[in-house]
């Protein structure tokens, strides 16, 4: 089994860990660091539950080899608790009942946060396009779309104040 020691920044902290070349980032985060907010669903890029931030952009951790993150900056959902945008999204998801089992939620929040960073007033259709790569089997999506729209409104109001 090929193994390399990799160093990267995880949630603001420098870390070093042995990684097998065949393993993906999602498993590394869960198994080596206990960052279990990153959920593993399909392992081939379809479901979006494993989304994390790599060097500032949202990526699928299941489609990123662990050895690829040597030198990179990785942020997981656990690190974003004090982020304004994430707080607004969390509140809106609760208010709108935008989750049931919660398995898709961290990935949804990651995707929605990136959407709102680039588009402060997305239309419903744009929200639907943005979350097209995040599967939810509980809600039927309507509540999620409404929650993201509400969070955008909250953030716009905060920006105005």
């Amino acid at each position: 089994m090929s193994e390399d020691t990799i160093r990267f920044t995880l949630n603001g902290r420098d870390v070093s860990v042995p990684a097998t070349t065949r393993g993906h980032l999602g498993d590394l985060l869960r198994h080596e660091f206990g960052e279990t907010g990153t959920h593993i669903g399909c392992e081939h890029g379809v479901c979006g539950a494993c989304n994390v931030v790599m060097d500032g952009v949202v990526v699928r951790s299941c489609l990123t080899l662990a050895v690829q993150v040597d030198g990179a900056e990785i942020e997981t959902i656990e690190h974003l608790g004090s982020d304004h945008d994430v707080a607004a999204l969390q509140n809106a998801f609760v208010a709108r009942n935008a989750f049931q089992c919660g398995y898709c939620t961290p990935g949804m929040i990651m995707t929605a946060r990136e959407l709102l960073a680039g588009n402060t007033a997305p239309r419903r259709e744009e929200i639907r396009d943005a979350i097209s790569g995040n599967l939810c089997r509980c809600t039927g999506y309507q509540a999620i779309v409404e929650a993201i729209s509400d969070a955008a409104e909250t953030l716009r109001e905060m920006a105005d104040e």
Partner: protein
Amino acid sequence: MKSANFAYIRATSLDHALSTLANTEDAIVLAGGQSLVAALNLRLQVPELVVDINHVPGLDQIEIGDDEVRIGPLVRHAQLMASDEATKALPLIGKALPHVAHPAIRNRGTTCGSLAYGDPAAEMPACAVALGATLVLASTDGTREVAAREFFEGLYETQRAPHEMLIEARFPVAPKGARPVFDEVAARRGDFATLGLAGQIHVDSGVIAAFDLVAFGSEPAPLLLENVADIALGKAPNPGLITDLSQAVADQVHPMESPLATPQMRRRQYRALAERCLHAAMEFADV
């Protein structure tokens, strides 16, 4: 599922990547990895060595010239989509990119990677064939240029040899006034297209001067619809012509058997899709 074991190497230069490909029986290039890592996890691909080119400097350039746009091997879909200059020079690419998978996948996936992979459902190969792009392949023996119209041979089959790397895609800049034609049928936005049309139409002095249309998704490789162009050239755009062209699209495709739809149903979908996107491209009211 988890990938089988393989060795991993981070290329430090293009020469390093090419010599590694030349010296290893079963090596594969990792650029965006959005198809490759999925294929590894599913064990559809079991290479001996993965050559990661993500840290080779200078491969992420988009060069916009007067005649062509040159796209380097590490240009991500999101990067190309964000380049107003590139999507203005290549309006078809601009129209197709929002259909390429989902935001998180566009953040990593590359144009050249999509071309080299040759997925029949992918948008970029269809656009490359429609626009008559040129693909540049490199190996330790040197470089060669292959027309996109000859590059795609079948399901994931291309003219690229295993020791070659696709180092550049050159797209001709759209002539002034040329309009993109693009739409696809997919279960959800960004999902694999079950069928689609990609093309460019140029109306000059009231008649169709150029029209290149490609069917993809339902075919083993992007299919240039030459009969459709033959019908269109020299004619003035009008709704009757669109009906004829849409029928010609349905007649010329050879949809693969699929558990989701019969070839006959695919032909009907093609006809409807062609009507819709040709009305939009020729600026008639939608049917």
